């Protein structure tokens, strides 16, 4: 069983990396990019029966820093 955790910066938290990527896209001549936010994706290969609550705990305790980040769990 697989789960995919997507971690993104909270709204209002400055994202210097997203900004740099935005600049680089503009430098390459791509117009019409309004904003870029960078995050990360973590794929978990889990034992069958791992509960949603277990994955939530993983996110809160380690995978995301909830001071600055949101997380989204998708089961594959």
């Amino acid at each position, binding site marked *: 069983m697989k789960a995919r955790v997507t971690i993104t910066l909270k709204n209002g938290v400055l994202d210097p990396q997203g900004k740099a990527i935005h600049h680089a896209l503009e430098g390459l001549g791509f117009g019409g990019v309004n904003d870029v936010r960078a995050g990360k994706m973590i794929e978990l290969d889990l034992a069958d029966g791992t509960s949603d609550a277990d994955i939530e705990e993983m996110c809160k305790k*380690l995978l995301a820093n909830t001071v*600055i980040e949101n997380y989204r769990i998708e089961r594959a």
Partner: protein
Amino acid sequence: MNTAVIVFPGSNCDRDLAVAFEQATGKKPHMVWHRETELPDGIDLIGVPGGFSYGDYLRSGAMAAQSPVMRAVSDAAAKGAYVLGICNGFQVLTETGLLPGALMRNAGIQFICRDVKLTVANSQSAFTSQYQADEEIIIPVAHHDGNYFADAATLDRLEGEGRVAFRYAEAVNGSARNIAGVLNEGGNVLGMMPHPERMSEAAHGGLDGKKLFDALVSA
């Protein structure tokens, strides 16, 4: 005063911090490996050093915060031991929850390694009592993730309670309210991005960092 310096895989300021502790206390610090579950008895001051613990994997300080020794450090802090986290050590302390907020990528993206001017925002703490209020000091920084973030309510509380120890006196990394170092509620835990241990001998070009270690010895 008995001191300890925590050593993680990837720490690289542990020996510099040990030298600064030894100069201030006259005693060699205990070097404590991250896998230890207990600290030696009678430790009064614990240093969490700079570096790149666990290669900064996931987030700076995130893996180190989960290492066995940090539980012992948290217990010691709860009992009143002084804990000083410098640079990566500050990141570890926020990830551990011993200090509020988070250290994010520098606003300008680049790694910054230079001397910076700081203002002493609280000269009453055990760490800063040898500085004058609002004194300007020079201490070097060397970091990629030093951009201090906390929500507005937390920042207001830190300022209201005198828990901002140091501020940058110039634009450095985009930190909220120019915060360079914060104290915990009890005043016995300090995290700061600048490196006082790199400004504590005449050969370093200044002694502004030495006062922090001397203050702890007389605390």
